[in-house]
């Protein structure tokens, strides 16, 4: 292959690898919205918590991030269930204002705690490094690992939602909570499950991002915007849409970063956001309602 | 009939995904009558109402109201022209008072005139004592009445009623029927759909029958009852919508 073609492939692959991690975040946000009609502003901050948990396990005891993920995700699942039970459940079915403000409060609280406990310093988890060269294309090993794990988790969640009885109940509740209730589905339990699952997915994404990127207390906001952009691209409530949208955003960011710089790459999510908004404002987020 | 129709629909079509909810519909309503609209569940009655009132836009076809082409018009302009509708499940402004629900719909820009009209309508249906109560606190029957009164504030000449009798007790039902006749005497035209076939057939002068989004029959109630296609449509689905809905 020509040199420029190799570079093109390399950039695209790098974007796809990162995109799979974004997918974890967007899928969780989508599930929570689907079942509860709540936009979780604190979603990015849950990612931040997952990233810090991984960082501390690695820094203090040298725990391998992949092993850490196995401990962090269930732990964050429980945190999510607790948040749902104590706080979020109170605003389900309330006017939009309540849930937006509540999750914003939560976001501020979590960011503030992280700042106070762990300072504003940038941190990283240098567990993996180097790259794999296949046919002249270099692939970053940390990204490859993050991608593989993210893909496995995404597949597991997909199978759960489509095959498992409980997963089907989740989808039924997202379709129509009232009908689900009539059909004997314990909707309150489904909500606990979904917020827990969403939190665990965000935390898993955080753990994997910690391996690739530097982490800091306010990282959540940027990733929340990425998740929004992905959902705008893929359609609100759509699993496949979120996954493909995430890969697309990853690739777009990779190219923007390659052509210009990382600052511009960070802005891609916003540009996508505005673009979709201007092109098809009515059709934004699919055709729910 | 030499009378000009007040509503003329032709080629009206609306799809949802692969489903054609309303299919090449064509009919015309003559004024000052009570028209009935019946059909099995999912035959497109509510979709048709949504199209006529501008809540939904048709994929193709035209709607002519009082001699003007209103296809694609927003609901508020269609309402301003004189078409009013109610919803199958009442849609009141629940966190607003009964009085405010009426005033917000007033055709008159003059506040005093609007208040006078609202007071008159409230007295008419006996809701005056609940004037300052939040609409969300009313009983279901009262909500149905209020929704209709709110509609009357806009002074419509053509009124579409979507299942006005569902979940309404017999006393309230008689009240509604009385009200409909009263308005009819003042020149208003009605298009009414309901699951209670008995009511529709006694109340309406002419009936339209929908099945799978198509108009399969139109005529006098007596003729409709004997119409082969109508009977087939209802029996063919093994669902007799003629049986009254259980009260909620």
């Amino acid at each position, binding site marked *: 292959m020509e040199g420029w073609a190799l570079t093109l492939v390399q950039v695209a692959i790098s974007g796809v690898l990162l995109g799979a991690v974004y997918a974890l975040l967007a899928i969780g946000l989508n599930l929570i*919205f689907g079942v509860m*009609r709540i*936009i979780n502003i604190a979603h990015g901050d849950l990612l931040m918590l997952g990233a810090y948990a991984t960082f501390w396990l690695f820094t203090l005891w040298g725990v391998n991030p992949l092993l850490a993920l196995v401990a962090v995700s269930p732990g964050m699942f429980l945190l999510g269930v607790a948040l749902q039970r104590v706080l979020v459940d*109170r*605003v389900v079915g309330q006017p*939009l*204002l309540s849930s937006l*403000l*509540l999750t*914003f*409060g939560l976001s*501020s*609280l*979590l960011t503030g705690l992280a*700042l106070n406990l762990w300072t504003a310093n940038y941190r990283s988890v240098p567990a993996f490094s180097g790259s794999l060269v296949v046919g002249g294309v270099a692939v970053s090993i940390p990204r490859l690992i993050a991608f593989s794990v993210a893909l496995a988790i995404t597949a597991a969640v997909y199978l759960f939602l489509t095959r498992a009885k409980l997963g089907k109940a989740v989808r039924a509740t997202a379709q129509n909570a009232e009908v689900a209730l009539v059909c004997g589905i314990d909707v309150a339990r489904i909500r606990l499950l979904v917020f827990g699952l969403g939190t665990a997915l965000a935390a898993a994404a955080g753990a994997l991002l910690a391996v690739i990127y530097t982490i800091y207390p306010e990282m959540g*906001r940027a990733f929340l*915007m990425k998740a*929004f952009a992905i959902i705008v691209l893929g359609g609100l409530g759509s699993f496949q849409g979120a996954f493909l949208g995430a890969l697309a955003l990853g690739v777009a960011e990779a190219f923007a970063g390659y052509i210009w710089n990382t600052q*511009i790459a960070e802005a891609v999510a916003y540009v996508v*956001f505005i673009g979709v*908004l201007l092109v098809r404002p*009515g059709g*934004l*987020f699919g055709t729910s*309602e | 009939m030499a009378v000009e129709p007040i509503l003329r629909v032709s080629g009206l079509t609306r799809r949802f995904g692969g489903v054609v909810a309303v299919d090449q519909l064509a009919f015309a309503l003559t004024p000052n009558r009570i028209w009935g609209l019946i059909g099995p569940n999912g035959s497109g009655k509510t979709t048709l109402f949504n199209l006529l009132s*501008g*809540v939904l836009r048709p994929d193709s076809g035209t709607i002519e109201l009082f001699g003007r082409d209103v296809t694609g018009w*927003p*609901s*508020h*302009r269609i*309402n301003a022209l004189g078409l*009013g*509708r109610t*919803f199958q499940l009442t*849609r*009141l*402004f629940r*966190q607003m008072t009964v009085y405010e629900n009426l*005033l*917000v*719909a007033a055709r008159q*820009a003059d506040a005093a005139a609007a208040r006078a009209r609202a007071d008159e309508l409230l*007295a*008419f*249906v*006996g*809701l005056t*004592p609940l004037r300052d109560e939040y609409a969300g606190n*009313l*009983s279901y*029957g*009262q909500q149905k009445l209020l929704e209709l009164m*709110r509609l009357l*504030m*806009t002074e419509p000449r053509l009124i579409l009623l979507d299942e006005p009798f569902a979940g309404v007790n017999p*006393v309230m039902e008689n*009240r509604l029927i*009385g009200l409909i006749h*009263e308005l009819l005497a003042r020149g208003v035209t009605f298009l009414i759909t309901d699951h209670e076939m008995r009511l529709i057939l006694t109340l309406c002068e002419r009936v339209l029958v929908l099945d799978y989004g198509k108009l399969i029959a139109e005529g006098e109630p007596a003729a409709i009852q004997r119409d082969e296609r109508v009977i087939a449509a209802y029996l063919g689905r093994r669902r007799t919508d003629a049986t009254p809905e259980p009260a909620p």
Partner: protein
Amino acid sequence: MAEIVETPREAAAEETAALAPRVRPAFAPPRALVLGVLAAVALVAVALPFVATAYVVRLGFILLLWVALASSWNLLSGYTGYVSFGHAGFFGLGAYTGALLITRLGWPWWLAGLAAGGLGMLVGLAVGWPTLRLRGPYFAVALLGLSEVARIVATVWEPLTRGGLGITLPPTADLVADYYAMLALAVAATALVWAVARSRLGLRLLAIREDETAAEVVGVPTTRLKLLVFMLSAGFPGIAGALYAWETSFIDPGTVFSVTWSVRTIASAMFGGAGTVVGPVVGALGLNLLAEVLWVRFPFLHPVLFGALIIVIVVFMPGGLMGLAQRRGWLPRSRAW
């Protein structure tokens, strides 16, 4: 009509009897008391610069800034239910417009402020056109995103804005003049809400909040009205931003486009009671006075405490102070409040 009047009235009367206890006769404060309180508040507000220290006047300036933001946000979001996270964007836009007009073109501060308000309204029109067609959650997300985009544009457009370096304004601002300008802005925003709330427009906006489709069907031109109030609502943060830039003498994208402007505005309005006239004013004063105290005592814990405060407000007083007072019958359930 005579014939059918009889039956409905009787039947409804029966149902009314069952409902009666829920209709609570509200205490209506005598007019003299209301006017007296208003006059006292006005006197304090006007006399403050003559009797208070510079610190207090400056605090008053900031509190009035929040009143202007909360009242103008309330006009759109409190009444139509469309939750706007755009106030940070309009505030930042106003701050930069004001700063650039003053530093580059040498405009007087008050003229720059008015221009910033005008631009805010224009941009409001342009932004509202596509976004107000979106349903609630999507509108909220869209404006949150647009606000962030505005911040990025201000950061990246270095030739105009000097990017992250920010803009320094001549430090010749007169605190007392700024205070009165902000007082005028806060009063104007609140007076506008009061006028709208008592009018048919106010009822129509509430109808949009309650059920937009039903509002359309009874003749409310929802799109036009939403656009109108969005535009009116966007002008105030524009002016407020310019006054803030002038008074503070320094702005940068991270500060003036911070989402905090939106969130605190929303929290203020909700604390007092969104969709009421008095609520957002009381909420803005109360919440931000509290925030000021917290800020001084625990500067590092500020976001934590503020987050917790917001959560407490949402969970325990969703109707705000006004909702509480009106439910308890302390205040009349009148739209004029």
